[in-house]
């Protein structure tokens, strides 16, 4: 009997050994793997014990602050909901997005290099305080952008073309960050996609606003000049198909500047084919197409622009026949672009051909007020030379003074721009305006897109751009 009993004890002991081995695997070997699982929201809840850093606007006002309730810090939005899709949510139940996600380590004080106090706290095992972020977003301009989009669907991006600093980034329809957890189901299933950050995630047919890119390539190649003559018959037949003008218009003889001013499709289709597919696509690449703009947002929240097929972004050298090239030169065919990308196109022209690296976080400020990181403006791409940029600048000014974008004109300030109107086929249009001001010393570049409108880019998008440009240019302090 004793032998059998000691055998049973051995089995029991072995079972306990199994428990210990499994616990070691769980708690030591795979602990980090379990912590990193997306289903695991424990880190978020634990971080709610940390006083999360504030997110400040460029004017120093608090866009996202904290309130403390029973030992936990919750986000509060004293300035109303400003740029919710860009700032992102911070939820125990649904995780994080936007700047909240990308800068979580800074906001929770867990990153390195957050000042002496933070270092001492960590050394002593004390709970650190979160660092604050000062954004380049100017709340006054952001508010105007959001108000202009109110009741519409679309996006507004405004940035400083000389630095790449994002001044405003609005996405509509929008939502209230403080009510996210209560309305999650409705928000996540809403066909209007209020959670989507349209400026960086919205892929739109750029339409005629893309003609700036085509023109840039054309002028660079020397195949056209602003004075090159064309004749429009209303139809350009190419490769068994044809390119027509918006609304069936016929313009007769025109030069390249007039074609830009009045947005003549046939002329740009011809320029596209003079360039050929390689140089057309290369011009787009020079402005940042086919790359993910390096704005400081989580992966997936900024998408690249370019030609898209069924399986996503096509390779730059994917095949195009001359008809494809003709329509692509007019921003149609398979070409898709984000509002941010189109603002970078406008900004590149404004900045003498140099596209600045876009950024949104101006400073990281330690809890004790010490500025521990400042973003220095950097050039991202050399889109074109100063000569071509100057020619484009003049042509784009003509668009506003006497072309399709007269609604973007401002009193006493020269505005340069380009409209776009993409017909969706269901009777509604996608209205675009991209531009910058003042034309002779650009300080603000914008891209505006309005979805589901019955009007053109000049009617639906240009007035919004004017309001945003005006609001930005009346600011005394811009990033």
């Amino acid at each position, binding site marked *: *009997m*004793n*032998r*059998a*009993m*000691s*055998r*049973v*004890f051995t089995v*029991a*002991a072995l*079972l*306990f050994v*199994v*428990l*210990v081995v*499994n*616990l*070691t695997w*769980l*708690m*030591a070997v*795979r*602990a980090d*793997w*379990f*912590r990193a*699982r997306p*289903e*695991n929201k*424990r880190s978020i*809840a*634990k971080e*709610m*014990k940390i006083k999360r850093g504030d997110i400040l606007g460029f004017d120093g006002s608090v866009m996202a602050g904290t309130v403390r*309730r*029973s*030992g*936990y810090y919750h986000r509060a939005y004293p300035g109303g909901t400003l740029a919710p899709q860009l700032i992102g949510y911070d939820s*125990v139940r649904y995780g994080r997005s936007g700047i909240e996600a990308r800068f979580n380590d800074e906001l929770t004080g867990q990153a390195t290099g957050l000042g002496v106090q933070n270092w001492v706290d960590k050394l002593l095992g004390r709970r650190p305080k979160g660092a604050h972020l000062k954004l380049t977003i100017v709340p006054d301009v952001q508010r105007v952008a959001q108000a202009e989009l109110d009741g519409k669907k679309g996006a507004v991006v405004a940035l400083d073309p000389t630095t790449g600093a994002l001044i405003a980034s609005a996405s509509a329809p929008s939502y209230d960050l403080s009510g996210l957890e209560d309305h999650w189901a409705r928000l996540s299933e809403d066909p209007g996609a209020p959670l989507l950050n349209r400026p960086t995630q919205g892929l739109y047919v750029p339409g005629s606003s893309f003609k700036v890119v085509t023109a840039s390539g054309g002028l660079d190649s020397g195949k056209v000049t602003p004075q090159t003559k064309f004749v429009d018959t209303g139809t350009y037949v190419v490769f068994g198909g044809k390119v027509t003008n918006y609304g069936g218009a016929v313009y007769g003889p025109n030069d390249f500047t007039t074609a830009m001013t009045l947005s003549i499709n046939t002329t740009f289709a011809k320029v596209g084919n003079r360039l050929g597919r390689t140089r057309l696509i290369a011009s787009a690449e020079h402005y940042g197409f086919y790359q993910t703009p390096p704005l400081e947002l989580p992966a997936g929240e900024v998408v690249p622009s370019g030609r898209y097929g069924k399986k996503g972004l096509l390779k730059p050298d994917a095949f195009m026949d001359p008809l494809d090239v003709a329509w692509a030169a007019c921003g149609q065919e398979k070409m898709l672009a984000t509002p941010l990308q189109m603002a970078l196109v406008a900004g590149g022209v404004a900045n003498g051909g140099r596209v600045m690296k876009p950024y949104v976080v101006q400073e990281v400020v330690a809890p004790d007020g010490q500025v521990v990181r400042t973003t220095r403006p950097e050039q991202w791409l050399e889109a074109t030379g100063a000569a071509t940029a100057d020619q484009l600048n003049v042509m784009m000014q003509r668009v506003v003074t006497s072309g399709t974008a007269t609604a973007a004109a401002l009193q006493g300030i020269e505005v340069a721009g380009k409209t776009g109107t993409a017909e969706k086929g269901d009777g509604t249009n996608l209205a675009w305006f991209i531009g910058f001001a003042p034309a002779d010393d650009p300080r603000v570049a914008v891209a505006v897109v309005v979805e589901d409108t019955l009007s053109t880019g000049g009617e639906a998008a240009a007035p919004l751009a004017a309001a945003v440009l005006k609001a930005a240019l009346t600011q005394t302090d811009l990033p």
Partner: protein
Amino acid sequence: MSRRNQELLFLLLAGAVSTMAYVSVYASRFREIDTVAVVHALAFVGIFLLLHIVERLLLPQADPFLLPLTALLVAVGLTEIFRIKPALALVQGQWLLVGAGLFIATVVLVRDHMRLDRYRYLVGAVGLALLVATIVVGTTVRGARLWIHAFGFSIQPSEFAKLAIVVFLAGYLDDKKVLLSVPQRHLLGVPVPAFKYFGPLLVMWALSLAMLVFMKDFGMALLFMSIFVALMYMATARGVYVLAGAGLFAAAGAIALNVVPHVQDRFRVWLDPWPYAETTGYQLLQSLFTIADGGILGAGIGRGYLLFPDKSPVVPDLQTDFIFTAVANEMGLLGAVGVILVYLLFVWCGFRIAVYAPDGFSKLLAAGLAAAFALQTFIIIGGVTRVIPLTGITLPFVSYGGSSITANLMLVALLLMVSNRTNILRGGTELERRRLAERG
């Protein structure tokens, strides 16, 4: 040093450690060290000192390690329960008092465990009746019918039935062990005992199956079946019973898997919890996350993230079935393994008592109780750490719950009685021997 003085020394050590742990949790919760905390801790130590004095009077030669080990486990449980929900710790403290009362009642009334053998059929019938009563008038909580609500209390009768069944089986199998171990005939060349003696195995199998189907309680069914198989094996030393038992339980499990959706869910979640992260697998995954988060050293008692901002526990049933999850999170791998070692020491003491016991009934009783204790511990810790499918049973002495702590204190009382008798027969004083004889 005498056994009782050893026990006193260990108890005081366990009491000191427990008091420190409790007071530190109290301090981290209320940000001050209050006399209330010290009073709580002293009351806890007092209860165990009372049991120690009872032992000095009635069980002078009982094993000196079991009670201090029990005190350690109870302290771990009370501290974690207090940390999760302070009000429940006071209730659990009262249950500890009731359990101490039942411990004393067991020692005083039963006097000598050998007397239980005489009433084995009565005890077995009581055990069976408790289970049947649960099936008939029990209430279903979270899919399993485990509870009887009576007089404002909820009782989990299976915890007590477990003791009764072990007492009955120890007596029955000790009687029939020879008949069970001698093969009467051959089936396909394999020697098989007579059906008459094989019968109990089938009865037990039917009982486990009934528990599965009617109580939907996979954990208790597994526990009862394993206790039975372990006792059969220890009584007869024949491996065929283990194989037969495992086969029968597998068959029962297969039937339950197809008949009881609750069991099916548990099994599926065990195989792969990830697709059910927001539904049936939520509890298990949260448990795994919470355990993994403990790391090697743990968050520190009272400092782990165990409660949501609204004070509800991060894992449902954290203070009962998932108490080990809380322990692992706050005490880390080292603490969790330490707790498992305490259980192992407890089980080792139980088996040692069985090995030294002079008669078959005492041996089977002690070994059966120790095996039951070990298996219950394994089933629930294995469940919350995904070694085996999750089943809702309590972690002895640590989980919140009156039935569990009282029944397990009775289990300790029985083990102590067996060891007391053994030690007196093997070398007690003349006086102790005479007293023992008077009691029996």
